[in-house]
């Protein structure tokens, strides 16, 4: 194993972490701000991926433009679905006991998966990568998928955008205030339920965006939601609830960790995310970037 190959593995692991980050950041936000363990986040991500599939066959082209259109149209679509869910269901379970939340969000998983099956069927679908991102680049004499490099650029940009939104904008101030002092925020004349609705929609937006990116990375079917959501929970626990930076760090730890463990102890890679999660829960239960509960 030479140094070039090690670097190759490192960069590959980072790019794997990016997809995870995009989905997990939405989960973390909803988890952190609304205190809801949203199992259905995975289903929303899956619906985003299927929407991307439908739209891409509409555009019927492998142009970068068509892919940008997916990125522009699908996440708001999922966010609008999220709006409906928030208004009709989720706002009734904020700050209720976790068992109730689990029951509701898990039954939502079943309903959304059933609807997805009705609309798109059980077949495996795929979205073509845009022509410019479909090939490979030369990385230390090895082939590296251009699309993964694209993810490596988009991920941090998205993280930066989220950070600006949360820490440098008025909306972000409200969202963060709603986490800790919702009563005070309400007393100051801010419409707290609306802040929560927006936050939930933002989470759904990110799920949808994750779906778009995943649809061109892998094939999609009815099982991708459940498969990814568990990993995302690990990321959120490792990074800390509600922390975008934490979601980024958690995703990168898992992405890079799995990439290397895969090479040396292939059979151990599956358990790696959960071992790290367990370690974090023992040493720092509030997560690497999280804050201890009040």
């Amino acid at each position: 194993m030479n140094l070039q190959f090690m670097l190759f593995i490192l960069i590959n692991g980072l790019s794997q972490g990016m997809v995870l980050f995009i989905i997990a950041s939405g989960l973390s936000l909803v988890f952190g701000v609304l205190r809801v363990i949203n199992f259905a986040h995975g289903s929303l991500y899956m619906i985003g991926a299927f929407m991307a599939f439908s739209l891409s066959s509409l555009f019927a082209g492998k142009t970068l433009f068509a892919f940008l259109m997916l990125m522009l149209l699908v996440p708001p679509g999922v966010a609008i679905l999220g709006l409906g869910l928030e208004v009709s269901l989720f706002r009734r379970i904020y700050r209720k006991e976790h068992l109730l939340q689990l029951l509701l969000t898990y039954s939502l998983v079943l309903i959304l998966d059933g609807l997805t099956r009705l609309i798109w069927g059980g077949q495996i679908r795929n979205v073509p990568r845009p022509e410019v991102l479909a090939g490979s680049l030369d990385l230390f004499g090895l082939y590296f998928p251009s699309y993964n490099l694209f993810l490596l650029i988009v991920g941090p940009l998205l993280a930066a955008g989220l950070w600006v939104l949360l820490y440098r904008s008025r909306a972000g101030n409200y969202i963060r205030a709603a986490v800790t002092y919702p009563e005070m925020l309400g007393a100051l004349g801010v419409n707290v339920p609306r802040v929560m609705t927006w936050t939930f929609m933002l989470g759904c937006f990110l799920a949808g965006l994750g779906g778009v990116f995943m649809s061109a990375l892998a094939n999609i079917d009815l099982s991708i939601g459940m498969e990814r959501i568990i990993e995302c929970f690990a990321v959120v626990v490792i990074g800390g609830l509600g922390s975008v930076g934490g979601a980024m760090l958690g995703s990168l730890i898992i992405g890079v960790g799995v990439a290397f463990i895969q090479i040396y102890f292939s059979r151990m890679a599956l358990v790696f995310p959960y071992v790290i999660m367990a370690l974090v829960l023992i040493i720092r239960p509030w997560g690497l970037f999280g804050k201890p509960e009040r």
Partner: protein
Amino acid sequence: MKKMVIRLFGIAVVITALMGIVPAEQVLADEVIKIGWIADMGGIAASFYKSQKDGIEMFIEETNATGGFMGKKLELVIRDADLKADVGANLARELILNEKCEYLIGPTSSAVALAATKVAKEFKKIIFFHTSNTEKLTTTDFHPYMFQVVPNTGIEGRGIAYFLAQKPYKNYGYIGLDYAYGHDQHDAFKESLLKTNPNAKITVEVWPKTGESNYGSYIPTLMAQNPEVIYSSLWGGALSTFIKQAAPYGLFKKTTLSSLYDLDMLRAMGQEMPENLMGYTRCPFYAVDTPQMKAFVDKFSKKFNDWPADWAIMAYDGLLALKKAVDTAGSTDSEKVSKALDGLKWTSLRGERYIRAEDHMANVGIYVGVTAKDPKFKDFLVLKDVVEVPAEKVWMSVDEIKAQRAKNPQ
């Protein structure tokens, strides 16, 4: 108010009248033979289900048009086992007891098949497997009422190894999902490969979990050992996902991937399928050159405006054998028909075939070839230079089967 009562009364009369008609039809339906199909409709099996359904329904339509089985019309009853073994067993029971099905057709999942075959055995009803193919069905879990018309895991694993071992490759990689089927294939493949080519070595093995959609960390692991061939027991959606992700890593520039390239999988890949991969399939309509297949493909493509996938053909072939056996036995009774199926010779779409009496395995081999573009098929690649590895070359010998059964008595 009074009007409403009258209206309600009217509705009640109509409903009763309608209910009266139904039993009248059921009297007519006595002359019907029911075939119960324990299907796997969703998930990774979804596209298989559609193909199987087309093949089965076409057979039933044709057979009914020419007098059915011994003058009795065929009727298909479908249930979804959803790839779950316990559900499959319950459904098999329900199909036999409530629906009074005389024959059963098996599912896609081998786990469901193993559960359903036990029920068929218990009630002494014929069960046909056309897609699920664990070798256990014909060895340890064998019973006189089960029949297999799809190359089983042993024929596949040993068949592809037999084929590859003739090539000069030494450095092999393996990728398979971490469950029974993946391990069965691996063991059959490894054993046969090392027997035929002692110089060969499997230098890297990776075992993604079932349902994995992202192979991004497995691909570099395979690359690290530079294998000349990777044998994969991935199938359907898992396989197309893997290929799609591995291509931009340049994996197929240095390495060939040997795997199950059935029509549904090739269609799912479309033009993204890499050329020159050496793989196999269970029954390719485009490479089987028999007049029966030609006629079948013509009819099928006219009817469904689609090509018949392996799954449609194998399901159809199994039913052809069943029909021949019913005619031979002169009865539709499972007991008598199963006797007729013992060693039955029939004209399948794949040509003249027989069912080996000792294990009820049809002599169906795998078809190996190299992926290539074909001007006849715009939307997908097919296998080129296809040859069949005959089942007789690689299937388990009767002695071996007996030894297996002795080791695992039922």
